[in-house]
C-alpha cells in the first residue's frame, strides 16, 4: 500500500532526509535544506501530488505549519515524517485559532515552555528545553520530542485545537481535542460524528535517526530541567537536571542522588510493591501518596542494578500472590502452587522437590532442620580429603551455617533476619511485611516482652 517515490534533486550539505506522507497513502522521500521555509516544501511536494502549492498544507506534530516557518525551526530529525494534506475547505474550521495564537509554529516549540508543569514559571526566553525519555533503542536517558497523532486512527495527519498546558494533558488520554486530517471519513466512521477526535501524545527519542512512526520512547516526565535552581534534597547541590518527586511539595533530588536513593533502597529490598504502579519508591522525604507511577524512571539505574530490580520485583510479586521461590541455590524460580499443598516441585526450573514449610527437600511428616552438613555432594574423588575439613571449607554450606547461626526468620514471612545490635524489638525489613516481633520469643512483640527482656 505504501509507495516510496524517490526524489531526484540537488544534494545539499547537511540536508535532512524527510518522509512526506500524503492522505492518499503515498510516502515521498525528500531531502530538505534546513534553511528552506514551508512554502519551498509545498512547492516541492505539490507537483508530486498533482496539486498547486496553495492547495497543500503541511502538518507536523499536531500543527499546520505556516508558510514562513523554516525547516530548522521545526525540530525535525533525520527520517522524520511530515504530512501533506490537500486542503478541502477554506478556511478549515480550526486553523484561525492556531494561526492567531502562535502563527503556525510546530507544537514542540510551544510546549517547551511548559516542561516545568503545573506552575507559572517561564524559562528565560531562547532556552530550548527538551523532554526526557527512556529510549529502548539507545538504551538510556535521552532527549525526547513530543509528537501527536489521532487517538482513534493513530494517524499523524492531525492538528490539535489547543496546546497541552501540563503533563496531565500529555499523559492522560482524551484531554485535548483536535482534527484528524487522515481522510476525514475514516475517523468520522469510527466516531459517527458524536464526539470530537482527541489528540494522542507520544514521544520519540531525538538522538537516533527515527526508525519510523512506531519508534516511540517512554517519557520520563519526572526528570526536568532545573529552571528554578532548586537545590537537591539530599546533597543540596544545584544541578541542571533534577528528579521531581510526585509529592505535593514536589521534592527535588539531582539525578546522582536519585540513583543513590534507588540503589540504597534496592540493596535493602525496600522498594514497595504498589498494586497499580508496580515495584516502586516514594519520595525520600516521606511524603504521603508520592509513589513513582512510571517505573521506567528506574532505568536510570545501571544495567546490573536494573536486572536486580526486575528480579526483586518478580520475586515480590510471586510472594505477594501467595507463591514460593525455589530454595535451590542458583534457581529461585517463582512457583504459584495450591495453598494447601506442601509438596512443591520446581517444574519449569531446576526440578527440585521441596517442602513448602521448611524449604528443605520434601519429606513426610514434621519438618526438622537437618544438622548434617555432609549430606550433599558425595561424588567420587580420586584423592582423599578429610570429610570434616571438606565440609568446613564449602562456601555454600558456610553461608547456610552462617544464616542458621546468625539469623532468625521473621515469624510472619520467614525472611532470615540478623540482629546486629540494639534491643530485642525487631521490625521485619521486608517491604510490605514490617511485622513487629520479639527476637527472644520469635512471636509478635508484646508489652510483656518489653517488660521482661527488652535488652535480653
Amino acid at each position, binding site marked *: 500500500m505504501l509507495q516510496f517515490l524517490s526524489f531526484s534533486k540537488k544534494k545539499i550539505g547537511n540536508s535532512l532526509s524527510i518522509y512526506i506522507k500524503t492522505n492518499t497513502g503515498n510516502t515521498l522521500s525528500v531531502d530538505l535544506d534546513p534553511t528552506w521555509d514551508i512554502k519551498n516544501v509545498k512547492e516541492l511536494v505539490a507537483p508530486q501530488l498533482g496539486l498547486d502549492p496553495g492547495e497543500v498544507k503541511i502538518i507536523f506534530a499536531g500543527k499546520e505549519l505556516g508558510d514562513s516557518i523554516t525547516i530548522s525551526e521545526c525540530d525535525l530529525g533525520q527520517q522524520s515524517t511530515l504530512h501533506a494534506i490537500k486542503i478541502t475547505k477554506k478556511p478549515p474550521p480550526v486553523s484561525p485559532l492556531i494561526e492567531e495564537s502562535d502563527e503556525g509554529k510546530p507544537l514542540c516549540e510551544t510546549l517547551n515552555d511548559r516542561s516545568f508543569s503545573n506552575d507559572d514559571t517561564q524559562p528565560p526566553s531562547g532556552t530550548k528545553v527538551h523532554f526526557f525519555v527512556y529510549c529502548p533503542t539507545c538504551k538510556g536517558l535521552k532527549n525526547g520530542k513530543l509528537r501527536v497523532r489521532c487517538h482513534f486512527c493513530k494517524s499523524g495527519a492531525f492538528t490539535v485545537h489547543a496546546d497541552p498546558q501540563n503533563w496531565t494533558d500529555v499523559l492522560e488520554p482524551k484531554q485535548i481535542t483536535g482534527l484528524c486530517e487522515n481522510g476525514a471519513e475514516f475517523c468520522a466512521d469510527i466516531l459517527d460524528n458524536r464526539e470530537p477526535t482527541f489528540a494522542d501524545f507520544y514521544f520519540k527519542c531525538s538522538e537516533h535517526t527515527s526508525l519510523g512512526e512506531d519508534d516511540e520512547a517512554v517519557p520520563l516526565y519526572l526528570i526536568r530541567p532545573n529552571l528554578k535552581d532548586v537545590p537537591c*534534597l539530599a546533597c543540596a547541590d544545584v544541578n541542571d537536571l533534577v528528579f521531581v518527586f510526585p509529592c505535593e511539595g514536589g521534592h527535588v533530588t539531582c539525578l546522582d542522588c536519585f540513583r543513590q536513593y534507588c540503589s*540504597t533502597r534496592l540493596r535493602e529490598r525496600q522498594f514497595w510493591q504498589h498494586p497499580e504502579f508496580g515495584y516502586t519508591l516514594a519520595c525520600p522525604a*516521606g511524603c504521603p501518596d508520592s509513589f513513582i507511577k512510571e517505573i521506567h524512571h528506574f532505568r536510570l539505574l545501571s544495567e546490573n542494578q536494573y536486572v536486580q530490580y526486575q528480579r526483586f520485583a518478580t520475586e515480590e510479586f510471586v510472594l505477594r500472590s501467595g507463591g514460593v521461590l525455589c530454595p535451590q541455590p542458583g534457581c529461585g524460580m517463582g512457583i504459584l502452587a495450591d495453598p494447601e499443598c506442601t509438596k512443591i516441585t520446581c517444574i519449569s526450573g531446576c526440578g527440585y522437590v521441596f517442602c513448602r514449610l521448611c524449604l528443605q527437600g520434601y519429606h513426610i511428616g514434621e519438618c526438622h532442620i537437618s544438622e548434617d552438613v555432609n549430606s550433599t555432594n558425595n561424588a567420587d574423588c580420586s584423592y582423599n580429603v578429610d570429610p570434616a575439613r571438606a565440609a568446613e571449607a564449602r562456601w555454600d554450606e558456610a553461608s547456610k551455617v552462617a544464616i542458621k547461626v546468625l539469623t532468625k526468620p521473621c515469624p510472619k514471612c520467614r525472611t532470615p533476619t540478623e540482629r546486629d545490635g*540494639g*534491643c530485642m524489638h525487631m521490625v521485619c525489613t521486608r517491604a510490605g511485611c*514490617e511485622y513487629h516481633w520479639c527476637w527472644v520469643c520469635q512471636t509478635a512483640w508484646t508489652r510483656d516482652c*518489653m517488660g521482661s527482656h527488652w*535488652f535480653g
Partner: protein
Amino acid sequence: MANIAAQRIRREFKEVIKSEEVAKCAIKVELLNDSYTELKGEITGPPDTAYEGGVFVLEIKVPETYPFNPPKVRFITKIWHPNISSVTGAICLDILKDQWAAAMTLRTVLLSLQALLSAAEPDDPQDAVVAKQFKENIEMFQMTARHWTNVYAGGPHVNKECDDKIKRLVDMGVEEHQARVALSSYNWDIERATEQIFS
C-alpha cells in the same frame, strides 16, 4: 558514592555550627574523623526538667547511605529516661528508625532528642524499668533522673541521700554504677536493691 553522605554531612555540620541553638549553647557537634562518618554530638538538658544543667554526649555514626538512611545515634552519657536505655544509651525515637526522612538533618535530630528529654513517651519505652517508674511514681522518677544528671552529666543538683545509699553499697564491695542502677530500679529501697545484687 559515599560522596553524597560526606558532602551532605559537611553542609549539615556547617548548618549546626551557624545555628542559633549553638549560639545559645543548646546543641553542639564535633567531627571525630576527616571522612565525616563519625561525629560527637552534645545537647544540654532542657530547662524545667530533671535534666536541666546537664550536658549529654551523643555518638553519631553516619552510614554510607545517608541521607536515605538515618544516622545511628546513642547516648554516651548515662541517662535515666524511659525512651533511652540506661544500659547501652540506645534511643527509641521514631525519626531515627522507620520515620526517618531524607529531608531531616543533624540539627533536627539533635533538637528532636532535646525535645525527647522534655517530653518522654512512656508508652513507647526503650527502658521498661524506667518507664514503669515514670508512670507509677513520677516524683521518684524525677529525683532519680536529677541524680543521674548530677553524677554523669554534670548537673547541679547533688542528692545527699542517694549518694549515701550508694556509698553504703559500695562499702559492701559493690561497683558504684551497679549500685546506682539497682537502687534506681528499686525506688531507692536499699534492702531490695541489696537483695537483687546479691541474689
